């Protein structure tokens, strides 16, 4: 909290500008958020495999799982709104 308070007005303006630009190109932000979410997912994968895989493997499997989920959403969008494609 103290760190947030110490941000100058210029730095806050810059942050707001960055976030506003993401409205036009949401993909990089989404990717970043997905990778962050994977940090939550990876331990779950590690637990599910009973520790037989390494932490890197768990992270990679998490990314793959998210990617598969994204493809499912993409294909559902194609089916429901085909005129967009």
């Amino acid at each position: 909290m103290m760190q947030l308070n110490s941000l100058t007005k210029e730095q806050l303006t810059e942050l707001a500008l960055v976030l506003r630009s993401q409205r036009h190109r949401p993909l990089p932000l989404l990717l970043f958020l997905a990778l962050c979410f994977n940090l939550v997912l990876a331990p779950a994968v590690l637990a599910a495999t009973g520790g037989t895989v390494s932490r890197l493997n768990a992270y990679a499997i998490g990314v793959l799982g998210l990617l598969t989920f994204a493809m499912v959403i993409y294909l559902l969008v194609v089916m429901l709104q085909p005129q967009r494609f």
Partner: protein
Amino acid sequence: MKSPNPLSVSQPHPSAGEPRSSRQYTPKVNTKGLYSRAVRESFVKLDPRIMVKNPVMFVVWVGTIITAVTTIAPNLFGAVPGQNQRLYNGLITLILFFTVVFANFAEAVAEGRGKAQADALRATRSDTIARKLLPNGAEQEVPSTTLRKGDQVKVIAGDVIPADGEVIAGVASVDESAITGESAPVLKEPGSDVASSVTGGTRILSDELTIRITADPGQGFIDRMIALVEGAERSKTPNEIALTVLLAGLTLIFLVVVAMIPPIANYRGNPVSIATLISLLVALIPTTIGGLLSAIGIAGMDRVAQFNVIATSGRAVEACGDVNTLILDKTGTITLGNRLAEEFIPVNGYSLIEVARVALASSVFDQTPEGKSIVRLAKQLGATVDFDETQAEGIEFTAKTRMSGTTLPDRAEVRKGAVDAIKGFVRSRGGKLTPELDTAYERVSRLGGTPLAVCQDGVIYGVIYLKDMVKPGIRERFDQLRRMGIRTIMLTGDNRITAGVIAQEAGVDDFIAEATPEDKISVIQAEQAENKIVAMTGDGTNDAPALAQANVGVAMNSGTQAAKEAANMVDLDSDPTKLIDIVTIGKQLLITRGALTTFSIANDISKYFAIIPAMFTAAGLASLNIMGLATPQSAILSALIFNALIIPALIPLALKGVKFRPLSADQLLQRNVYIYGVGGIIAPFIGIKIIDLIISAVGLA
């Protein structure tokens, strides 16, 4: 007395039914460098923003990236049993990469051919200098690109017509080979439904014309044809959208199925590598049709342009494939439309010269070809104008009065028009009718001509026989339409007897006579109410509402601007039976898509038998290896190689389309299910086995 043979107007060209490429004067399409450009384009299309528009190939593209990652780090997703994982994953990556490239290549070749055709069309256009007519009557030379709708220009012999327009004065012959590929000159003159519109880029051969421009630069017919073949404004047709939804659905199902395999495989103690899972997914999803779908659509539009038809949308071409009923206008569509005075038939005891005099007087202000032919015939018979034209008043034809004529300086009214309209006029002036009139009327109608009665005040002088000819070769084309299951109906404002004779001669299934423009619309609506798809061909302004109402409206290029705007297709050859070719293309599009989709899905069976035993050898499914493939790795590689190679192998079929055979729907379905369904099941077994033998021989796996 017969009039001399006229210059032919809007006759179907001798090569009607043949594509542009086989016509003598069509600018030839240059396909040099087409394939090398297509190869370059295939790699450019790997951009994810382009790939995302094709769901099936996008899934393959994502799979390629994942397998590329596993080539670098084979144990990224967990330890995998087996040797040479890097080599194996690398080979899979390469094959998947080429699968995507081959699909892009198919689309690039189709687009390249379209662009080559567009370039050939562009070459016929040039920025010319036009002679613009200013409001004060002076002429100004301006570039043709500065002309706008409503401007008036003068073109003289040797000039290229600068833009699409309507002739408002003058008579000239025009070489339309730039758009039709035929060099036979066509007569253009004002006031006629049939011969008054001209297209930019055509050359005037003799005399001069004053033209009112009807299209802004870039909106003319050649521009629209270029846009159509280039595919610049191409959007997916309803059929393509439906098929895309189906393919996305199938891909989704297979994705979910393949994603469910790892937990089950791990449980059975038979872990499967990610590369193998992706191979299974790519082998199962319909990549063949996914890769070729857009190429089929683009090639279909190019074929429409090859037949000299400008279609404003792919949707109209597809709708053509399902047409049940074709409604045709008579004059200018089934007949040549340049009705010319053939004979004067006197009644009431008048002599031929007297009838000729009255006919001449009634047509002296008439600018239509019919009027001019009456003047010509009357002068041939020795009649002269015996009044001061500057003191007389011309009465124009209206659809309401169905008459035209002249009010002479001594207030005498000379009229010509439909026989019943003239009868009404004579009755209203207190005159008497004669049965000779009806005899003459029937005689002309039985000959298939149009009878015009001519009178002065309350006295009928005679009947003018306007002769119209059915376009040659039409009867055979209507027979062809009948064999395709399409019913033809002729609609005309002419009387029943004339209509009956022409209908008989042309060979249409049914006709409706004395039809008003409202009747034309109600006939179309009645057919549509029975869930029939109705196509209409026409050329006149009075056809415009009906052309707009029909599911498919085909306007003749020789017709009026209003008709061309209302229709969703324009036939540059002005051939009313061109619909046969468009129906064939429409059906071909649908059949080709169906055939390749069937083939694509039928292929899956053999790929199951290749990949599943290879994946689950440890789980005891090795006995399913009915093709006797050498090793699990060679089995998977063979299936993927076959999957990749089948796409370029089917490109020629996709571009040419499955050959249309005039069979019934059931017969066609049966035939295609055998060839593409059963063939699609059997062919991959053989293909995969051969590839497996080669791979084992080479020692790749």
